[in-house]
């Protein structure tokens, strides 16, 4: 019985991980229609940043990873993705090519084996069933969501971002430099992947294939949550986290993945556009 109760916080903490890895994607996918398969490799870049900076300090790695992954995203946006707006399926394949190259690059830079990232001492131990590092990840997820919300609703840049998101053409004719907004969006979305990468070093392996372990889950969260919807992503991540947690508790890890997939297909039967979506009158 205690085990069943324990699955609740565990589910929430799985949800927090899902939310962290999917948050940046909600931006780039939801807002710009860019399906970035290299998102997983930005997570990896964040994790390697934590590896390189572990002598300096874990908390320093968070902003550093944000900047590193963000800059990688920015470069990707400027050099390649920019040419592909409005062609999301092509972008998907393009960024997959990029992700292959980034994986090999990581292999050449850091070696194929996993590297060791030591968790900071203050994250050892735990509260009840949840270790401190899980609580930290949950707190980080909450903070990230709050920061994003504040950015979008309380700053001029954020307002412009929302304007572009709702109606690109109107925003452009109203004098908003949509190119710059796109760059910023991509920087932030990729940067969030970097932050997720730092957090993941606490609980998972740090190696060249790290990104591939999370990318499909991240996309499922975005699909279930709806395009570009912050609250959709939050609810979907928590929902999938809980589902995962209980499905695995009562069956096993393999079956849990299949159950989650079936649940998402079923869910899309009821809400084909995800939890939340913006109504649109236009016809393609």
């Amino acid at each position, binding site marked *: 019985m205690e085990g069943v109760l324990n699955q609740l916080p565990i589910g929430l903490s799985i949800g927090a991980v899902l939310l962290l890895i999917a948050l940046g994607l909600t931006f780039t*996918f939801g807002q*710009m*229609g860019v*399906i970035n398969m290299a998102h997983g490799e930005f997570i990896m870049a964040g994790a390697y940043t934590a590896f390189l900076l572990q002598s300096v300090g874990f908390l320093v790695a968070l902003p550093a990873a944000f900047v590193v992954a963000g800059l990688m995203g920015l470069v990707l946006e400027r050099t*390649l993705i920019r*040419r*592909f*707006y*409005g*062609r*999301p*399926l*092509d972008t*998907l*394949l*393009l960024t*997959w*090519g*990029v*992700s*292959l*190259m980034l*994986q*090999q690059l990581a292999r*050449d830079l850091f070696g194929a084996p996993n590297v060791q990232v030591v968790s900071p001492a203050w994250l050892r131990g735990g509260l009840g069933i949840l270790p401190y590092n899980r609580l930290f990840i949950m707190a980080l997820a909450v903070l990230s969501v709050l920061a994003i919300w504040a950015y979008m609703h309380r700053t001029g840049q954020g307002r412009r971002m929302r304007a572009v998101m709702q109606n690109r053409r109107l925003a452009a004719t109203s004098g908003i430099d949509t190119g710059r907004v796109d760059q910023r969006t991509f920087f932030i979305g990729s940067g969030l992947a970097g932050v997720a990468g730092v957090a993941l070093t606490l609980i998972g392996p740090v190696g060249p294939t790290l990104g591939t372990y999370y990318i*499909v889950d991240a*996309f*499922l969260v975005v*699909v279930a949550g709806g*395009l570009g919807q912050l609250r959709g992503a939050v609810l979907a991540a928590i929902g999938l986290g809980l589902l995962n947690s209980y499905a695995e508790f009562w069956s*096993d890890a*393999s*079956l849990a*993945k*299949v159950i989650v*997939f*079936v649940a*998402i*297909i079923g869910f*899309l*039967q009821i809400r*084909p556009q995800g939890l939340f979506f*913006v109504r*649109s009158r*236009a*016809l*393609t």
Partner: protein
Amino acid sequence: MTAVEAPVEAPPVVRREPRRWQGPAAFAAVALLALVVAPLLLEPFRLGLLAKYLCYAIVALGIGLAWGQGGMLTLGQGVFFGLGGYAMGMYLKLHDAGGDLPDFMVWSGVEKLPALWTPFGNPVFALAMAVAVPVVVALLLGALVFRQRVRGAYFAILTQALAAALVILLVGQQGLTGGTNGLTNFFDFFGQDLAADETQRGLYLTVAVVLGVLYLGARQLVRSRFGRLLLAVRDGEDRVRFLGYNPATVKTLTFAVSAGMAGIAGALFVPVVGIISPALLGVVPSLELVVGVAVGGRFALAGAILGAVVMGYARTYFSEELPAAWLYLQGALFVLVMTLAPRGIAGLAAGLVRRRREAGT
């Protein structure tokens, strides 16, 4: 309007109305090359590899149909390939076991042949299932997602998740499927020794002929009214509704056809290569198939086939010569093709032909 629903990159401007004899002549030339020249020139090992690439080309043809013509980017084609492959593998396994339990069941602790396996002892049933199961799965998935107007990126991601889920399922049911090992160690193919060079040559010719027939069928489909309807659905699904058609039906049928092709390819792949395993139908192999189609040219059926063969050869070559560079090269090739030649080799070739024609007149 969301960008997700934006139309795909427009195909070539040239109308496909070359001189009457050109198409059949080119087809005959390729057929001659594939059926006569290749078996004479290539040593058995290389011919076997070519047979493998041609199996992938059959899948690619289906992807070309679904993605190039119908705008449905399917990242889970490995699922259908695998279902076809497993159907064939189950028959071969039972045939080799000759009434006993297949070897892997013995070491997985299965004592009695599972009911699911029993009918696969019949080759006709197994062959029928190799096509029917993928088609039915595609019809079901298509009916569910297309009716709800799930499309574009959503559809791509769902098919990808399907591939991931199937792999996990296959791996988890070791007693039923052979787990990660998959099904392998086949000896006899309809009375022929699978290790013999003649058998492999015969298999190669079978694959080549099947590919040719499916290509002609797909071509007919593309040029029919249905093909135009498919193109219309690709470019304006919502508009098609107001022409009185249900796009979901059109897409589901096309998706099922492409799944059936992948199933046939999987069934042929098993005797050619001698193994079917979850690793062959997961997320990455499914994506690699799509890469091949993009490189060859997704808007032309022949381009899809060409792409699969070229990527197959490139993979073998680099894996023999520069294994560490393969990921870089695959990634780079892909980025280059998507940015510089989104219509692939076929698009480039069409462009060259057009330019020469313009220069000539």
